[in-house]
């Protein structure tokens, strides 16, 4: 097979399914009746609802960055610099929030935080409050809590790996020259950690800006993402959706490029091995305080998990702190109900197909980037990483508007578009893991095989592939499970019930009055187990940290 042809195919694929929809959004938001205009933006900004949504979304993004920083920074430092019993046991627990989508967690948390939910009842029974407290407020607070709990591990991961690469002697040199703790942190430590921090903060802010499932569950409308979602319904008559999507694209591109520049400028970690910190042993009192704080954080971050597990098992849960009766009935329903059956089947089919696409394209592109000198491969690199910066909601919106009334119209049959959008969304992970496997694999390892008389195919089969494949499969496993639980494109692109993937089934069920939410939670628990398992498996496959997958740039 000719690598050049494959290269051109990858290029065309990305241009058509990634760049073209974005370009379409761009033209639709600036062109009215064939002329260039800012009218759509003016109209959008003149609308109070839109203005409020933009303001709220920004507020949410900033608040979540602040809260995740407040949690992630100290946590990363404690784990990197201190020694305490149970450290290796505790560390993975802090990643558990990642296995539950915030929108699934939200369904469970409603049980606990609602007006007559467990928390209020508990406080009421113990006499701390007399009237129920509105924890969720309009829903904004609920979204904020869920996103914080879900996203702080990303901050923790990024900072931990930055601290791992960190050469402690740079700090020691500062102390040696007479600088104090605070000054050293401000002048040395923080600037050196900045690229890692900024990368995490970017992911978090983009996530917060574009998360669609959580606000939908809380029925909170005043956010950009929900406005975009609602805008799709009357896309043909009201172009405001385009303006909002373009706004999101611009913000994310800005963050993406800044991160890339920051990371590109970071020569500190390469070259020589960093001197590791000597882990400090904590004195007894501080140790107890540390455990208490960690315990509080863990119980808060496991609340969504606990709540969906309890909901999925509860036969009766009204006006009591815990369910009054338990049942396994809802898990049976998952496999009997036509909607859940359809959802599971669709999701597995879609995710398998998109994972295959990802494995093939990810490996090929990773190879092209790492091992060939084909012209324009830098552009390919940029294209393939773009989905990291383009939120699912934008892609789905682009597909919906671009392919309406064509053969790919999602209103008729969204299967192809869903496969493509799932695979493009996960492609960066696959390309990155293959690319980094190739990079770690010194070219001389292949040359050694050539010099012993092996041809390209033999070298590939016996040397290159066995060494690169763990990274590839680790990426594939994650891509599969992420696709099964993919929210925004599933919500937007799947219109008819028989095309619903799991996420849309969960969302639909959560809105039904009878036992819908409980079945949704049961399905959510199963998804949680799938994602948890896949993290575990892929981290076993590649010894390097999963944190690599949560980086921009």
């Amino acid at each position, binding site marked *: 097979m000719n690598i050049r042809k494959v290269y051109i195919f990858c290029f065309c694929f990305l241009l058509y399914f990634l760049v073209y929809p974005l370009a379409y959004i761009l033209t639709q938001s600036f062109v009215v009746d064939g002329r260039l205009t800012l009218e759509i933006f003016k109209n959008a900004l003149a609308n109070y609802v839109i203005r409020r949504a933009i303001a709220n979304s920004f507020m949410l993004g900033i608040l979540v960055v602040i809260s995740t920083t407040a949690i992630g920074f100290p946590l990363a430092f404690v784990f990197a610099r201190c020694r305490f019993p149970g450290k290796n046991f505790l560390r993975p627990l802090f990643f558990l929030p990642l296995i539950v989508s915030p929108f699934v967690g939200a369904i469970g948390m409603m049980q606990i935080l609602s007006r007559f939910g467990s928390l209020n009842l508990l406080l009421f029974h113990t006499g701390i409050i007399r009237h129920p407290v509105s924890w969720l407020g309009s829903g904004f607070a609920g979204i904020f809590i869920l996103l914080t709990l879900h996203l702080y591990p990303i901050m923790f991961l990024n900072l931990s790996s930055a601290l791992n690469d960190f050469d402690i002697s740079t700090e020691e040199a500062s102390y040696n020259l007479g600088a104090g703790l605070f000054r050293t942190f401000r002048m040395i430590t923080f600037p050196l950690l900045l690229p890692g921090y900024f990368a995490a903060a970017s992911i978090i802010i983009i996530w917060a800006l574009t998360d669609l499932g959580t606000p939908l569950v809380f029925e909170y409308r005043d956010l950009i993402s929900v406005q975009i979602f609602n805008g799709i319904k009357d896309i043909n008559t009201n172009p405001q959706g385009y303006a909002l999507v373009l706004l999101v694209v611009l913000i994310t591109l800005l963050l993406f490029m800044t991160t890339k520049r920051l990371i590109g400028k970071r020569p500190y970690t390469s070259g020589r091995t960093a001197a590791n910190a000597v882990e400090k042993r904590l004195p007894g009192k501080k140790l107890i305080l540390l455990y208490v704080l960690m315990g509080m954080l863990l119980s808060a971050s496991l609340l969504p998990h606990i709540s969906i597990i309890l909901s999925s098992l509860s036969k009766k849960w009204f006006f009591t702190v815990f369910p009054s009766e338990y049942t396994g009935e809802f898990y049976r329903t998952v496999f009997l109900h036509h909607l859940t059956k359809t959802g599971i089947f669709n999701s597995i089919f879609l995710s398998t197909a998109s994972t295959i696409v990802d494995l093939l394209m990810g490996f090929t592109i990773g190879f092209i980037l790492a091992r060939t000198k084909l012209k324009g491969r830098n552009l390919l690199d940029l294209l393939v990483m773009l989905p990291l910066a383009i939120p699912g909601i934008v892609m789905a919106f682009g597909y919906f508007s671009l392919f309406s009334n064509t053969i790919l119209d999602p209103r008729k049959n969204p299967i192809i578009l869903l496969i493509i959008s799932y695979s493009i969304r996960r492609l960066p992970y696959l390309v990155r893991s293959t690319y980094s496997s190739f990079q770690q694999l*010194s070219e*001389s390892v292949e*040359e050694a*095989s*050539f010099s012993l008389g*092996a041809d390209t195919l033999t070298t590939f089969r016996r040397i290159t592939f066995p060494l690169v494949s763990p990274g590839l499969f680790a990426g594939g496993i994650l891509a599969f499970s992420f696709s099964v639980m993919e929210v925004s494109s599933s919500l937007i692109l799947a219109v008819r019930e028989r095309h619903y993937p799991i996420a849309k089934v969960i969302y639909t069920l959560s809105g039904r009055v009878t036992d819908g939410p409980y079945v949704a939670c049961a399905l959510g628990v199963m998804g949680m187990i799938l994602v948890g398992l896949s993290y575990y498996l892929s981290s076993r496959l590649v010894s390097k940290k999963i944190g690599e997958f949560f980086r921009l740039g």
Partner: protein
Amino acid sequence: MDILELKGISKRFDKQDVLKNVTFSVDEDEIFFILGPSGCGKTTLLRIIAGFTSPDAGSIILSGRDITRVPPATRNIGLVFQNYALWPHLNVWKNVSYGLEIKRLPPEIIRRKTERVLQITKLTPFSNQFPPKLSGGQQQRVALARAIVTEPKVLLLDEPLSNLDAKLREEMRDEIKRIQRETGITMVYVTHDQKEAMAMGTRIAVMNEGRLVQTGTPFHIYCEPVNKFVASFLGDINILRAKITETDDRYVRVITGEGKFSVARKTDLETGQEVEIGFRPENVFYGQQENLITGRIADIEYQGETVKVSVITDNKNNFKLRMFSGELKNIKLEGRISFSVSPDDLIILPVQ
């Protein structure tokens, strides 16, 4: 007999000449060194011989066959990489037998050959281990074993000892020499370490800025360097500007800032020509009158078995002398010293 011949090899990378018209030939059974500072193009040259980089001009002849355009896989040239490039997913045995399996030899022969090479490289006890578990020296041996097991016509070694510590490096020098003797394989060995080249090399080719400057036995290039670069790259040397005043059949007479000197004649030189003369710090004598230099001892650097003495003359010329530590009792800091250089030990170098 020539086994490997390079004719007029040139290579440019990004508008920069990395190799300029490099020509040399390697004899069968020798350890041929390519010696030069980093960035002189020696690794590129090695990769061209191995076939991983193609030259812009010139040709490579192996056993009489032009292999310039032959792919690396069919050249039958072994290569030991600087970073070893061992395959971490294969154990020592598999790493070593790989090349034989590629040749589709019968299993029995593969087993025999692999066993023998593991024996020669003293790796037999480690045959089931995986490379990441081995020490630096052991990894080095695996890399060697893997490269020689297929009995290539020529074995290329790219700074193979640069990742080892000083003591291990000396051990491995002897090991490689022993393996060369036992297998009779021709080696082309690239390094920037002149001690390694002189200790192991049958012949040395000195490279600088993409050019081959001088080729010869270690003794020859140390004692008769063609220019200042070769002279100083191989060891310390004292240099003095000079002008030729007289020549006869046996001697060249020169005048320098330190007076008149006689140099044993080796090349065609004309009276009046500007040159430089040089001598090695260890080639000095005390208590003789010919080619005499006198000065003040400015520094004494104790180096164990020898001492490095720095002498500054009244004309402000600085000379380095090396003497055995036993002679320390005869000199003292700031004292006067006179020494002479034999006409045979003086080297005439062209002015650059």
